[in-house]
């Protein structure tokens, strides 16, 4: 096989910017997805013992979260990105008749700039965040449920409220157990961001497609980006390992 370096050389700025875009997108999605997943996960595990609040919680929190999680885990991310980009975003910020524009929440000019400059990026971040939130909520649920019931009971009998029990007792312990699956999830997000290339997100995969189509050869660009993706996920896994060790230390005293 003859490997033509000039294909990469010709497009190297696109590859570098693409790499930066991939990192930006991943970072944002991991942070937003974790926050969103935490909210959903806490919602999913919330429960009340008595009376009407039990049914209200079931109807307004638990079931909506269940349906949300099943919907986002049950459809391909690629399809979700397409739906967000071609249905949800035009519905919200289309300069012509978008909901936010008609309601004067954002001006036509802003909508135009948002759509043309950051359209693909926003759509991609929203879609991946919504998707990751569904998976991460289940990680939180598993983490929270893995903590012994006695912990909650002890905290509550000390007079702590439900939320401070969660924040000060349950979540710190659960978080340590959740680190490995959360790390997995971050790696998945990094790889999944490549799907954004289909809507014009200028990431690594986009650079490969562009260079590949111009030269009519996909060997070089895809081999190169697979190595880059691998390096990125490898570094990420090292980071997760390091964090696991750190948190394990704080447990030992």
């Amino acid at each position, binding site marked *: 096989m003859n490997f033509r370096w000039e294909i990469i050389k010709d497009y190297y700025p696109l590859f570098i910017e693409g790499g930066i875009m991939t990192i930006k997108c991943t970072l944002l999605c991991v942070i937003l997805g974790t926050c969103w997943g935490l909210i959903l996960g806490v919602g999913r595990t919330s429960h009340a013992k008595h009376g009407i609040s039990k049914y209200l919680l079931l109807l307004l929190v638990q079931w909506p979260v269940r349906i949300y999680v099943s919907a986002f885990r049950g459809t391909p991310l690629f399809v979700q990105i397409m739906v967000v980009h071609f249905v949800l975003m035009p519905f919200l910020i289309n300069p012509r008749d978008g909901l936010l524009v008609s309601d004067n929440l954002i001006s036509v000019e802003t909508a135009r700039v948002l*759509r043309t400059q950051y359209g693909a990026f926003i759509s991609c971040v929203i879609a991946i965040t919504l998707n990751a939130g569904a998976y991460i909520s289940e990680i939180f649920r598993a983490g929270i449920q893995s903590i012994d019931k006695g912990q909650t009971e002890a905290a509550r009998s000390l007079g702590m409220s439900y939320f401070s029990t969660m924040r000060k007792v349950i979540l710190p312990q659960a978080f340590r157990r959740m680190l490995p699956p959360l790390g997995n999830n971050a790696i998945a997000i990094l790889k999944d961001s490549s799907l954004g290339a289909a809507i014009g997100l200028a990431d690594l995969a986009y650079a490969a497609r562009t260079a590949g189509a111009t030269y009519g050869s996909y060997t070089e660009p895809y081999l190169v980006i697979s190595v880059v993706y691998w390096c990125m996920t490898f570094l990420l896994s090292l980071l997760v390992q390091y964090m696991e060790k750190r948190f394990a230390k704080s447990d030992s005293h």
Partner: protein
Amino acid sequence: MYSKIIIRFFIILSLFVSYTASAEKPNYVVGSGGTYRPFEYENSNKELEGFDIDIIKAIAKVEDFNITLINTPWEGIFATLDNGERDIIISGITITDKRKGTVDFSLPYFPAEQVIATLPHYDISSIEDLSNYTVGVVTGSTADTVVSKILGRNSSSIKRFDNTPLLLQELYEEGINAAVGDVGVVKFYMKMNPEKQFNLVYDNNFEQQFFGIAIAKGNTALQEKLNSGLKKIAENGTYAQIYQKWFDNSVPSLPLE
């Protein structure tokens, strides 16, 4: 008893006949990406149709070979030649020098005329004006080459999409300010989507480029066959017929030298 033997004899005979028939006529596997109406698209029976498909069928007829058409995604379509999955690719491929490093091309079979599509409120009247805007193109298309020259091929003002319908929907929803694409495909999209009408801007400065049929590098025998077929259908009027079927009466004269 005898009837069984006779039936077997006929089965074997028919197998033999069909085998020798196919041995006489070579069969080539033709790849084409089915998302480029009216050049190639898949109809509801999952058969490929379009201008390109008619052209390759006409060439196969005059050059006396069989073809097997396979819908092949544009991404990676060139690699299928190299690894032998396809013998011929006809998929609205613009002949460029860079691609000539990877595949060989037939003579040109279609002049790819480019058009700028914009929404009415943008002040775009020539390709130079594009430098102030976000411009969408189909990845690796003729338009990609042209716009890359103006804005710089690594510019973030160029957004590349998989196919023309995707590109034009993005334009309609103002994800881009302008789109550049093949006249035929853009016009066809507007015909199919009457609610989505764009301003079309023609510019004589678009470099004339042509579509060619791609084959594996060094397959000169097949290349000569395609070229002679192309010349034959241009001479006998088949090309004009096919052109009129998909486009209009302004049949171009091709540089078939």
